[in-house]
């Protein structure tokens, strides 16, 4: 590009002005402090989550170690279990309680960037051979007031505060020149209104968005800043900050092109901010809840209990049926006898029977939940902050998509776990020390990158298309001679009393 092009000349002029203005220094300072405090909070949260996983894993390991020690002693003939429940060779209680294993969601390299939905869904599930409802709906212990307030995390700074910083620097893009009497002078130069506005917007993008990207990246830099995971996520994070910022700048430009006074521009833009941050999200929330209500957990509790009661009522018949079918099978190493054996088999049959029904109930509930989320996935395009919040949560690894992906894996791991232990309990097969090494292991498969990029791409498209549309409208308006006249001669004190 020609260094003397009107755009570049105007841009360098704008950058010089911004550098001289104390407001831009203040905004830079606010962003630096806000991102640092937010990253401190976010890191604290991410570490807390991982500490919880570590405690759960350590507790599991030590429990299994104790059980295994008892089993070795039992195999050596030096330990006699006091009850079937405490028998380390009993596949039923080992699978149901003593070896129940935490399926954990590992942290991403950018976990500190957004708490997202991770404060509602714990980072691990204690999977057991019990029915799925007992472990897949586990919730973490947390002060409800903290959940209500939400976290001051980097995503909050980006979604809520960043637009205000942009508005503070851009509410008077053209009106300041007009009110200062310099607009007419500027337009005597060979520069179009569009070029002038574009250079102002670009200068602000460079200063505020450049600052925001830099400060957030510095605040979030991980222990391994060259890992693919960190580079990919911080790349997406920065791209989103720019796209989101461009939307707000385009909005400021569009309002500026309407010829309103600085005061009116500031008020309108603050109103827009409130509209997108608060009014649209809460209204669409009401709409989504009305059109596709979330599942009723109260009735789910009753349904699950009914399923359990019915399975219990059928248990005598189920046991008789099982014994008819498999009566002749005798394992080489039986573990239980008499009443204990009957009890264990009955319990295993009740679990298998009720779990089939319970899984159906849970799937129906999840389907209703997904119905609402599916609707919201469209409605959120009405509000860029909602889009941005969702995108940043996914980039951080605490969004709905990654959490759902984790839960689906935990569910199938639960099925594997159940299939490993309950048939053994039915066959009355004693677990050996060697079996402990072959218990199913949860191996989390990360969300495919294509899924993450696909989600972010659709959100980026939404943000950029909105920004482009606003830019186009502004450009067309500025091209009209009438606008030029209106901008130059609009009453200077319009709304100045407000």
């Amino acid at each position, binding site marked *: 590009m020609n260094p003397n092009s009107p755009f570049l000349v105007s841009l360098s002029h704008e950058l010089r002005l911004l550098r001289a203005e104390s407001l831009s220094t203040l905004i830079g300072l606010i962003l630096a402090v806000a991102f640092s405090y937010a990253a401190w909070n976010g890191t*604290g949260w991410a570490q807390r989550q991982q500490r919880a996983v570590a405690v759960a894993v350590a507790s599991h390991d030590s429990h299994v170690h104790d059980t295994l020690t008892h089993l070795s002693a039992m195999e050596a003939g030096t330990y006699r279990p006091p009850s079937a429940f405490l028998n380390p060779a009993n596949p039923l209680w080992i699978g149901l309680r003593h070896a129940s294993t935490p399926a954990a969601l590992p942290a991403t390299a950018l976990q500190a960037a957004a708490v997202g939905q991770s404060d509602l869904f714990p980072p691990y599930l204690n999977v057991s051979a019990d029915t799925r409802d007992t472990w897949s709906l586990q*919730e973490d212990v947390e*002060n409800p*007031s903290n959940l209500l307030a939400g976290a001051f995390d980097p995503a909050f700074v980006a979604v809520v505060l960043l637009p205000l910083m942009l508005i503070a620097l851009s509410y008077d893009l053209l009106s300041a020149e007009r009110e200062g009497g310099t607009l007419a002078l500027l337009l005597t130069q060979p520069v179009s209104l569009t070029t002038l506005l574009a250079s102002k917007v670009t200068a602000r993008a460079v200063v505020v968005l450049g600052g925001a990207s830099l400060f957030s990246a510095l605040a979030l830099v991980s222990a391994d800043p060259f890992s693919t995971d960190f580079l990919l996520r911080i790349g997406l994070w920065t791209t989103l900050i720019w796209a989101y910022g461009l939307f707000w700048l385009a909005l400021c430009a569009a309002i500026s092109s309407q010829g309103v006074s600085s005061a009116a521009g500031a008020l309108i833009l603050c109103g827009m901010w409130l509209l997108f941050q608060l009014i649209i999200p*809460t209204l669409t929330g*009401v709409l989504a809840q009305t059109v596709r209500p*979330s*599942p009723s957990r*109260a009735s789910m509790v009753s349904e699950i*209990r009914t399923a359990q009661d019915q399975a219990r009522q059928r248990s005598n018949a189920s046991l008789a049926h099982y014994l008819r079918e498999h009566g002749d099978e005798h394992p080489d190493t039986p573990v239980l006898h008499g009443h204990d054996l009957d009890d264990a088999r009955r319990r295993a049959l009740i679990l298998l029977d009720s779990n089939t029904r319970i899984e159906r109930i849970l799937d129906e509930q999840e389907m209703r939940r997904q119905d609402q989320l599916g609707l919201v996935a469209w409605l959120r395009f009405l509000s860029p902050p909602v889009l941005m919040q969702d995108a940043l949560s996914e980039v951080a690894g605490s969004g709905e998509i990654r959490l759902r992906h984790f839960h689906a894996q935990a569910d199938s791991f639960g099925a594997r776990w159940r299939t490993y232990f309950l048939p053994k309990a039915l066959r009355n097969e004693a677990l050996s020390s060697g079996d402990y090494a072959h218990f199913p292991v949860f191996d989390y498969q990360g969300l495919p990158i294509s899924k993450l990029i696909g989600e972010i791409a659709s959100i980026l498209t939404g943000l950029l298309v909105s920004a482009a549309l606003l830019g186009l409208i502004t450009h067309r308006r500025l091209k009209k001679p009438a606008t030029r006249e209106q901008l130059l001669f609009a009453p200077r004190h319009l709304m100045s009393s407000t």
Partner: protein
Amino acid sequence: MERANNDAISDILVIARKEGLELSRDRRLRWLFACLLVLLVGALAQGWQTNDAESQERASAQHANYQQWLEQGARNPHSAAHYGVHAFKPINPLAFIDPGVSAFVGISVWLEAHKQNEFQFRPARDRSSLHRFGELTPALLLQTLAPLLLILVGFAGFAGERENGTLRQLLSLGVSRRRLLAGKALALVGLMGAMIVPITVAGALLSIGTGDASQRLLALVGAYLLYLGGFVFLTLGVSAFARSARQALLVLLAFWLLNCFVLPRAMTDLAGHLAPAPTGAAFIQALTDARRATFGHDESHPAFIAFREKVLRDYGVSRTADLPVDFRGLALREDDHAGYRIHDEHFGHLWAIYDDQDSLRQRLGWLFPGSSIQAVSAGLAGTDTRNHVHFARAAEAHRRVIQETMSENLIQHRRNGDPDYSADRRLWAHIPPFAYTPPSLDERLTWQTASLGRLSLWLGGCIALSLWAVHRLRP
């Protein structure tokens, strides 16, 4: 003296009427106010409808659950204790005004043998991320949008008059500055009243006959008057101080932003750092470790053996089989009592940390009153953490009634050691349906004393600020 008073009142009324007339002629303001009113009415209607549906759902689930308890069939009483019941949290009649933490606490808790469970099924888990932007409720509108409206209407109160040159004229007429302030404040208070009245009326109508809801509603309205009243005087004070209307608006908007958006989150995180609560895993681990001292069903546990020895000694027999009562029932009761102490200690400690966090969050409530009004509003609507804990304690008390009744039945009626002993519906019916008595108005008000104090301080401070500002007001 009386005449002077009458003059003062008539001056104030004239000013207020003039301000009111100007406000009512402002088309933009009419629009803003109309929008807020529509949102308010919509929020009230939607909130009430949702609460009503949800209330019925929970009540019917509670009823169904009790029926299931009664019809569980003949079984060992301790098995029945393991089967347990679910306690569903009823929805407070005022929750439609302020749902507080309702979406972030579980809706029910399973009352089973041996352990005090945590609540399950936080409604927020089933909703989208939209929910994190807030819920459209009267509380949100009064806490966030109403102060903004007062700021937008009032920021030019003095600064605008000064810019238009009318302030000089007014003061030259000999109008007292205090009366000027009082008149302008009265007009804004009128606007504030117009926002609060629909909520009061709707709340009163919808909560008729539901315990102390109407008294709580009155207290709630009083708290909002303190909160919004402070904004009236702050706005006028800043307007009198500011060099220009624009500067006044900037300062007030920055304050509003800090109060409504930034500090609630920033203080929450700070409180989390200063009074850290254990993670779920650590809490469970600590509870499990503490419970290792109790014997549960482990008959080889040293505590079990010691207890058995003690019982045998007390009854003067050498074998449990010779006891006149069922030993298993005694052991269960002993184990339960040890469990109660452990649960009380651990849950008590956890809830005390939550209390600390909540009061830390409010430390600046006298200066930025958002945190204080949030606490008072949810507290009086019965939807804050303390009210939740009150319910959790009541549910736990009910669980203990079940445990005690079941163990007592074993002790008194089971032939010692009989493995086939079972009880039936007659025993299950001894357990009444779970009925919750919410805290009294006095209790709720006591919980909110500090927050109400901070709100009063806030209003007092704002009045003092505005008086000082008009005192040094230069035309």
